[in-house]
């Protein structure tokens, strides 16, 4: 009985897996053949794609715990390889799309320039603006915390402003604060302020009556229950706003440089390299921005893990 069940179970499992396996593979093989008939280079690109995808399917079906990292890594590397192949095989001009190796070459040969741009845009512009904006937003949220009236007004208005194209204020702020990093920091402050404010105000509402009553039975004052109960309870929300804002900060700092900057900075370099058609350099800056963006996000996530370890979303699933 149990053996039969197991067999049936196994059979069904096998059947479903081979089904999900075969249809896309057959389709992909057909596409590859058609591609090869049209143009051998197209066929080659499709064949590499097919091989990598097949490997991924195999790994997904059979791989162990490591597949969580291996499968996406193979996918990413495949994309890079296909990019390289497409550029080389089809002789795509440098002016339109440089190959990954060209971009890597640009990165390795101009490390000092990239570093100076990174410091100017990310550290001076984005990071300082981000910190000022976050402090200002959390401070404002705490300041209006006692007034239900202001909160009811601030939440919808803040939500509305957070959805606006605030990056458009960049030309105005560059006009006010000059071409230096200060104007970039100002753009970043305006951009990150409202998402963090809205999330903090929402987070400070998060405690329920039971918890607040408990604090009252301990004879806790406003500030005691604020620091011991309500602020920790708001942290997941605050971090939500902080995480959303990391990307916004970088976007604000780079876009603001399009409107005027000293002769250093990622936005400046993107704009001028583009003007002289050094696309590899543009892509090198984009790569730096991508790494900086992910790193920035990762740092905030790490801080979140440390500070909100008690929250259900942070507990590891077993």
């Amino acid at each position, binding site marked *: 009985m149990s053996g039969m069940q197991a067999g049936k179970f196994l059979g069904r499992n096998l059947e479903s897996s081979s089904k999900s396996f075969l249809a896309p593979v057959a389709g992909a093989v057909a596409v590859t053949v058609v591609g090869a008939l049209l143009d051998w280079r197209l066929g080659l690109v499709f064949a590499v794609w097919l091989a990598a995808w097949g490997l991924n399917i195999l790994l997904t079906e059979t791989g162990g715990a490591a597949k969580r990292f291996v499968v996406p890594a193979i996918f990413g590397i495949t994309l890079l390889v296909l990019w390289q192949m497409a550029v080389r095989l089809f002789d795509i001009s440098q002016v339109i799309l440089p190959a990954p190796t060209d971009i890597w070459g640009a990165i390795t040969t101009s490390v000092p320039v990239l570093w100076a741009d990174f410091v100017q845009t990310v550290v001076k512009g984005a990071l300082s603006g981000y910190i000022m904006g976050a402090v200002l937003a959390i401070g404002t949220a705490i300041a209006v915390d006692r007034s239900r009236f202001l909160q009811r007004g601030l939440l919808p208005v803040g939500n509305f402003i957070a959805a606006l194209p605030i990056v458009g204020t960049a030309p105005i702020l560059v006009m006010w604060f000059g071409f230096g990093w200060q104007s970039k920091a100002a753009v970043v402050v305006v951009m990150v302020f409202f998402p963090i404010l809205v999330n903090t105000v929402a987070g400070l509402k998060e405690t329920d009556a039971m918890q607040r009553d408990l604090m009252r039975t301990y004879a806790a004052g406003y500030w005691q229950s604020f620091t011991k109960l309500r602020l920790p309870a708001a942290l997941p929300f605050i971090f939500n706003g902080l995480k959303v804002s990391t990307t916004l900060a970088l976007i604000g700092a780079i876009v603001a440089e399009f409107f005027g900057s000293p002769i250093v900075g990622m936005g400046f370099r*993107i704009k001028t390299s583009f003007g002289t058609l050094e696309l590899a350099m543009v892509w090198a800056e984009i790569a730096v921005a991508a790494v900086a963006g992910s790193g920035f996000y990762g740092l905030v996530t790490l801080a979140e893990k440390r500070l909100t370890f008690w929250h259900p979303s942070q507990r590891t699933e077993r």
Partner: protein
Amino acid sequence: MRNLLPILTVVAVILGLWYLAVGPMNFRLALDAATRGGADVTPATPDEQGQTGLIRLMLDNPDVMPAAYAFERPRLPQPQDVVSEIYENTIGLARRCEWQGFGAERDNWSPLSDGCLRVIENRRSLIFHAWQTLAPTLLGFAIGTGLGILLAVGIVYNRTMDLSVMPWAIASQTIPILAIAPMVIVVLNAVGIQGLLPKSLISSYLSFFPVVVGMVKGLRSPGAMDLDLLRTYSASGAQEFWKLRLPSSLPYLFASLKIGIAAALVGTIVAELPTGARFGLGSRLLTGSYYGQTVQIWAALIMAAVCAALLVWVIGVVEKRTLTRLGLVR
């Protein structure tokens, strides 16, 4: 409606702060003009004025203050100037327009007069520029949303796709891709793709990932109980998708759509910025910044805000209608 009074209060405070800031922001410009105009100001020379603090200057020369508020080409315009600029370039232009009805004598299908069409296509018309921005936004949003939903279905039903694509979809959110939007436009133009499509590609890219992430979450939201119930009905895979997974994903989809459309609009505007686009709200921002026309910048900004609010509102209405009919909101 309960929140109306608080909201109005906050808006009034913001407008009040804006109005209060106009004088100090423009004071130095106005003082400079007054000095050159031979007015009696303390300290008398521009050099000394440059070394004096702003508050000191304002206290010493109270009679320059009205000039600071009425300053032409100000650093910070007054709210009503911006409003009148917007009115001038939208309704003001439209009022000069006449309706001539569908006449058989005209081969032009449009019910508007030729003069009127010229007004609408007027370079100053904010409606014209807003439409130049909205059209690619909407097209890109439609493309991005469609592809995003398809990819999400693929991710939910195919384990390999889930493992391969999902980490990258999430990681790509942290990359400030918007910053290179203008370059993408130029490259696409060089390849020969012109018109609506280049700008649409940016906005579709930006609306794509929120939709993927939200939709994957939504399609996976039915619990084991619901799925088991469908299995007891011996529902097919397609039935499970259409009758359970898709409806229960809609709240997530709409939340993502609101983020996506706002991102799409920002994408189009930024895409218009440094490429020297001739039309669109982004180009208005750029020309305004080149020629120091602050009122024009503010007008374009507020027009962009109105567009964003309108788009989010439309999605909100559709959301409410849909979810009410599905019985997901009471």
